[in-house]
């Protein structure tokens, strides 16, 4: 089985979010970048397939040279080879199109991408990629098994889950649940050493046109101070929730 895992290079979840250039660009100053958490669950699931069922795992990212440490980390976790499409990501469609251009000739049986990146939260790359590849697609995937070219996938829905079956090739939008948090693979020293020698291929972009663009960013207005309520006077809290906030 050939697996491709799409890796988004995103600011760490604890990052302070600021903007520069007249609020038109994300300020990367002092920001630590990581593998997008939703992608990390998919990568670990791919490693499981590799170990248990035999698979080769490629990882891919659309981004400039600054994203290579993130790809090297994915290699250290156990991916066999990395591909970097050498262009800055501009919108979900452009990224999906660049990914599809590489994936269509790669003969992949399974493509895993996070359900959304934690920076732009577009939530559209996996579905667009699947549609461009004319492959089956399962979003919000929290469980995946593959046997005899058939996939059984669990999709999280409001208040429960759904079991789906589909033949390969398949694209999934992954998230926590594909593997448990405690099973996430952390690179060890041997993995890090090996990753240095693994191939990281650079592919030139096809430059598809973006369909959307970010004109500017804005930070939420600062919040007013919290109203503290005396624990001996909880009636006041109920009164505020009822009469001021009007939520109960």
């Amino acid at each position, binding site marked *: 089985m050939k697996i491709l895992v799409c890796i988004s290079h995103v600011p760490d979840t604890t990052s302070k979010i600021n903007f520069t250039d007249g609020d038109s660009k994300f300020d990367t100053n002092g920001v630590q970048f990581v593998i997008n958490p939703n992608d990390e669950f998919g990568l670990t699931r791919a490693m499981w397939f590799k170990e248990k069922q035999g698979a080769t795992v490629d990882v891919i990212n659309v981004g400039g040279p600054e994203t290579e440490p993130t790809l090297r980390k994915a290699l250290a976790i156990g991916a066999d080879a990395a591909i970097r499409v050498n262009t800055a990501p501009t919108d979900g469609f452009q990224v999906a199109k660049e990914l599809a251009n590489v994936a269509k000739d790669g003969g992949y049986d399974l493509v895993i991408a996070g359900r959304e990146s934690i920076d732009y939260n577009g939530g559209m790359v996996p579905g667009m990629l699947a549609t461009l590849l004319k492959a089956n697609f399962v979003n919000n995937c929290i469980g995946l098994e593959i046997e005899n070219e058939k996939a059984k996938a669990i999709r999280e829905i409001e208040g429960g889950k759904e079991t789906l079956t589909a033949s390969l090739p398949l694209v999934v939008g992954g998230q*926590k649940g594909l593997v448990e948090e405690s099973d996430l693979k952390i690179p060890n020293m041997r993995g890090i050493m090996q990753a240095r020698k693994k191939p990281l291929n650079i592919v030139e972009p096809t430059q598809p046109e973006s369909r959307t663009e970010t004109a500017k960013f804005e930070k939420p207005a600062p919040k007013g101070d919290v*109203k503290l309520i005396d624990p001996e006077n909880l009636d006041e809290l109920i009164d505020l929730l009822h009469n001021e906030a009007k939520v109960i």
Partner: protein
Amino acid sequence: MSVLVYIESEEGKFKKASFEVASYAKEIANTSGTTVTAVTFNAQDTSELGKYGVDKVLAISNNKLSKFNAEAYADALKQAAEKEGSKVIVLSQSSNSKYLAPILSVQMEAGYASNVVALPESTEPFTVKRTAFTNKAFSFTKINTDTKIIGVSKNAFGVKEKQADAQEEEFTPTLSDEDFTVKVESVDKATDKVTIADAEIVVSGGRGLKGPENWGMIEEMAEILGAATACSKPVSDMGWRPHGEHVGQTGKPVASNLYIAVGVSGAIQHLAGINAAKTKVVINNDPEAPFFKAADYGVVGDAFEIVPKLNEKLKEFKAKNA
């Protein structure tokens, strides 16, 4: 040229989010001097949509569509949009809508903006305000394509009543076998519990509760308020509560009217995920807990004393205001 809106239903009944997206579509239609056409799938009675400004309903009834199928629903919506000549398609941000929107977007060569929180800033160029960085910021996104798909975040716009005709017309899209290559084998859903996505109120517990055996009072509060229960990431990581209850940046987002956090310190990832909740209450014994900076109302003290007392008072309140 009408604005097309995807109306979700369950067991034939419309979801509240559908009335919100219909209201949103109506506002856009009014600004551009056009009408709203809703697409429904196996809905029993579509006349109710008229209350929220729907002028026309394309009603699909097809047994093959009794369970949601992203590919097939997207195909049906595409055919509806083509029939109506719609250039703007509005949908919610439920898991089903988020599943089909990217498919529809590629098939219609339409730009798609997700997590939209307000009416378009302008229509020339077409710019919408959406959340980014998991609610830590907003982005103003220009959609450059002729056809546009807008995913409206829950509770961001609200349900607005505006009477219209909701004239129903039967609609039979042409579906192919290729629309059904992903098969739904089974659906496993707790029907007696309020979900985090649908809840008006969410009650959440954190590590401060010390152990899973102490969740009784959280569940009690949720029951009194008709709320969903949720938890912080460490709580689900330790297995105290199921993963489905984890809210925050890597868990579920919360956009309820009221969010009550008990013993949750308020890590930046947690706050990002619940930021869209309208009113936030924190109960914590540590006055330095970061959550107090993000909350509207706070009680500093021991949750094990406060929550049972608060539950009693809420019961009294509910009895009086029933």
